């Protein structure tokens, strides 16, 4: 490994970082479609809705009215 002064090292780091974009430039959420996340979300919501419908119409209501 090449040994150098601290000044040389600082210039090297500065140069290496010149091409790196900032956080917003690198990742724009509005241009990204999270297909996997949406799929997972839809599966979970569909499961919860199905479970709720089963408990409400399949279990709760058939057990009779209560007042």
């Amino acid at each position, binding site marked *: 490994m090449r040994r150098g002064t601290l000044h040389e090292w600082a210039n090297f780091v500065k140069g290496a970082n010149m091409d790196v974009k900032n956080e917003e430039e690198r990742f724009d959420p509005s241009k990204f479609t999270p297909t996997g996340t949406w799929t997972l979300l839809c599966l979970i919501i569909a499961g919860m809705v199905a479970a709720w419908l089963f408990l409400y119409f399949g279990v709760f209501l058939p057990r*009779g009215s209560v007042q």
Partner: protein
Amino acid sequence: MHIHPLERKWIYVVLAAIGIFLAAIFYTALVRNIHAPSHMETIDSASLHLSGEFAEDKLGVWTQPDGTIKVVLVAARYGFYPREIQLPAATRVTFRIASADVLHGVHIPMTNMGTMVVPGYVSEVTTTFPKPGEYPMLCNEYCGLGHDHMWSKVTVVARESWPAASQAQPGGR
């Protein structure tokens, strides 16, 4: 005000969920006639066993002139009295329950019947049991060391068998 399209979608999702839940509440209350028990009636817990509706000889199952059933129970550490009752299926049953001592709860698993029994108040719940069978009636409010032994038996018989069954139990009137 600018709202990001993704945030706008989630607002619609939340509004739809709220709408579904409100519709379920209104459907349950208006169409299926299901309401949270809200009876308010006071009683002297210390003397309820001496006279009146909750005297020992008045406890049990009563058939009302309109064909509905009234069940009068006393909850006391550690049981519901009478300890066994029979009821008809598919018939309106009104439970009137008072506590002789501390806070109790009534729950009949596999049915919608459940309420708290607060000392000094009469709990009243009207329900129906769609299916015949044997059900435990449990205390679901911790009431002391014997709480886990506090249960009674409710036998629901078919409606056709009810007249005979009604005569063969405490308070079978």
